[in-house]
């Protein structure tokens, strides 16, 4: 019998790492301060060399509206255009799920295009939440 209102993750989820790999929870924050209406194309978050990164959810904090698009580990955009930040729930307790997961290779990067839509200086942190995948 489980706690009926609790999320599955709180109940306990079996390790789903692929054979001969170990997934361990990790997140890559992306910090940016945009000036009013600034557009930045091709900012990057570097993936550590120690493990591949599996992106599974998105959380952000900002002081205003912004637009976002970013690429997968092979350089393909995951959105056809800028997506308003309000279309992503900005709550770590209810993150925007990204399934199926997107895998970024070790030493790779998350390529990000971002645009301020607030018309004011905008302090932003986007948290790419997921797991590091190490060989064992």
């Amino acid at each position, binding site marked *: *019998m*489980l*706690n*009926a*209102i*609790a*999320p599955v*993750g*709180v*109940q*306990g*989820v079996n*390790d*789903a*790492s692929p054979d001969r790999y170990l*997934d*361990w*929870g*990790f*997140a*890559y*924050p992306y*910090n940016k301060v945009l000036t009013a209406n600034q557009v930045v194309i091709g900012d990057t*978050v570097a993936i*550590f060399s120690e493990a591949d990164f599996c992106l*599974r959810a998105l959380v952000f*904090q900002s*002081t205003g509206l912004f637009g976002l698009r970013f690429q997968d580990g092979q350089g393909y955009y995951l959105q056809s255009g800028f997506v308003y930040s309000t279309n992503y729930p900005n*709550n*770590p*307790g*209810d*993150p925007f799920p990204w399934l199926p997961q997107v895998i970024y290779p070790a030493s790779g990067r998350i390529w990000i295009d971002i645009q301020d839509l607030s018309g004011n200086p905008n*302090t932003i*942190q986007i*948290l790419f939440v997921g*797991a590091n995948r190490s060989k064992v």
Partner: protein
Amino acid sequence: MYAFNAGSLTNGSSYQRLFIPVDNYDFILRHWAGWDSVIDTPANSGSIQAYDDIQRNFAALPMALGGFKSGQVLLPEKRYRVNAKIQFDLNKVLLANNGGTAASQLVFSGVRRIPGQAGDPAPSAVNFKRVKFFYPYTLTVQQAPVAPVMNSIPVLDYEFELERIELTPYLYPSRFAMTLFDSNKIGRSNVHIDALRICHSDPSLSGGELSFFPSPPLLYRVNSSINFETISRIGAGGALTFQMLFVGSRRMPCA
């Protein structure tokens, strides 16, 4: 639950490698919360970093989680071996308080892994069916400082699986903290846990704290009692009365 009371920290300061010792048994961490009561908002440079039991950080850089009242499920779950530490860094502390009484706490929730013991909820000796059941309780909390108060609800007639504790009214920050004891009178947290982190409030009325404790449910045997010790966090304004509802299921023996 393992919690860190941040009341002794100073607003505006940053702290590295604060920790909670993991005692007695391995601990499986599945959920963490409490940033809103401990660190400043991202706009003011508040952030947090945490570490697993072999010192791997949770994120590549400190996370700007200040201001969020909800907690976060950690997937995959993290295992802390016995005698390890739950470590974290706090950047730009901003404590929640209630009339001068600190109500600032980081809470790490999960399960203990005890060799040779059945997990919660404990098994019964007979076949049973579950029937929803509630134990209401009226709690009055005096203004601090007062001594801790032990509260007790007798469990009568049938075994009872506690699934959650509802609390009204919703008041932020927590006006009391509590330790819940199981059927064997063993506390289920290392310190008293802020009420909003152990009790569940109506999501439409709360700030989104959404505690899911106890998960998995806890079994109370017939003729035992639901014991919980409360301490006041009320700094001003006098005593307050809360309605608590211990929600769960009775185990009714059947063929």
